[in-house]
């Protein structure tokens, strides 16, 4: 006799029976929540940088959301609401786990985001595919790595913005910060990413570094063309 199988079947039967008798609104709400699992997982994956921790995070956030059904206002954006719960769960419980390397409070907010890390127009152009809006393929893997290395607070803001296209207001609500902070985090994050891409592009031979000041990086392609 396969006791495990039988036991499991029994549990499944009980669950099914429970599901059948459960009131409809709960069921509908659950369906609405589960429809966003992929999106939540995609964000969780970028936030946690680890597949199995991402699963735990999505699981926890989903259960929290189901329990907080009464707090959801029908007609509002359920995905933004779910991502807010996910972000909160991440900020409050998951950052201590594993690979974190920054604090959420401040530290990285200082410095003039405008002045440092100037990159010339030609260099920026060289990092894209010619005549296209896409990043050069060799830089895409590097970008992904660079996103993983961002300080938590920058990564959260950028991922919510770029992956899920949440508004600054929604991100501010999710992170519990003013909109201005969200803007500066996103700005700072992109700045860091651009600098890392530039370094990688130089290492990969896409750009050449020149010793003098200012526009010190000239694309190789442009130099070849000039020859």
């Amino acid at each position, binding site marked *: 006799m396969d006791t495990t199988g039988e036991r499991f079947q029994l549990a499944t039967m009980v669950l099914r029976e429970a599901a059948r008798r459960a*009131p409809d609104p709960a069921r509908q709400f659950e369906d609405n929540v589960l429809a966003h699992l992929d999106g939540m*997982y995609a964000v969780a994956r970028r936030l946690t940088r680890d597949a199995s921790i991402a699963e735990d995070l999505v699981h926890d956030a989903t259960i929290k959301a189901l329990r907080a059904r009464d707090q959801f206002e029908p007609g509002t954006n359920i995905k933004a609401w779910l991502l807010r719960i996910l972000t909160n769960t991440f900020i*409050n419980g998951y950052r201590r786990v594993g690979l974190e390397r920054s604090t959420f409070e401040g530290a990285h907010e200082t410095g003039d985001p405008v002045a440092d890390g100037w990159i010339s127009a030609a260099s920026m152009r060289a990092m894209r595919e010619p005549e296209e809006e896409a990043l050069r393929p060799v830089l895409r893997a590097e970008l992904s790595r660079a996103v993983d290395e961002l300080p938590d607070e920058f990564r959260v803001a950028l991922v919510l913005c770029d992956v899920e296209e949440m508004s600054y207001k929604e991100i501010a609500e999710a992170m519990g910060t003013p909109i201005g902070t969200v803007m500066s985090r996103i700005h700072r994050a992109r700045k860091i990413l651009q600098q890392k891409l530039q370094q990688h592009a130089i290492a990969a031979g896409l750009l050449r570094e020149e010793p003098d000041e200012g526009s010190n990086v000239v694309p190789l392609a442009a130099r070849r063309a000039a020859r």
Partner: protein
Amino acid sequence: MIPCRDTLRALDAYVDGELEPSHLLSVEQHLVECSSCLERVELARAMKRAIRNEARGERAPSSLRSRIAIAAAAERAIEAEELHPRRAPSWRSALPWAAAASVALAIGGGVRAIGDHHAGSSPKSELLASSASIPLIEDLAGPHAQPLPPEELDPARVTRVFSPIVGVPVRPVSLHHERHGAFSFTGARLFKVQQEPAASLSYNAGDRRVTVVVFDPQRMPKASCCLARRTINAGGEERTVFVGRAKGYSLAVYERDGVGYAVSSDLGENEVLAMAADL
């Protein structure tokens, strides 16, 4: 022409479609005149697109879907029970059955020690296999090495919700240590051991932590080769316990009445062993 400096801060908002209409015009005007800022915008857009495309390729694994579906069904069942305590099915109804299964196992093998091979049990259910065993003890020590926030704090709910999922009774019990005193239960969560659901129960006394993993040994295919076999006296009965270290923590694994337990702690092996005897 507006200087770049005044535009730079607005470029991210522009790329993200967050710029107010009043500001939009002056930024667009600047972009017509300034190729440098235009490049900045194009690069930011290219990066944004690359980040989105990569993340959007991610799909929630089916194991996660089923894990959440089970947990969601349990949530619904609890809610139904709380709303209609009489009509709705009770988790308790599933438990006596699990208990009965445990009794059957006990009759089959006496007090079956972990890893004892005995007639009637499939090789799959044998805990102490010889090979490929490290993932199991690493999994068992996982919740202690990487603690995550608890899903459930209420011991009664832990038993009610987790037992049907794990497949064996999950009961937070009192833990005691002669030197550190009573350990209090701080919460439980579900996780996976070798793709099968298991429960981890967390306890602490001061800054000392103990994690008890409860699992269904019948569902766990692999074994613990790297642990030493000990026989201890647990309340008058002999119990075989496997002791060792995993992920930097002491670990004691044993089976009782068809339920698998793994106790991990930053305490020493002998102390973990003593706790296993108490459980």
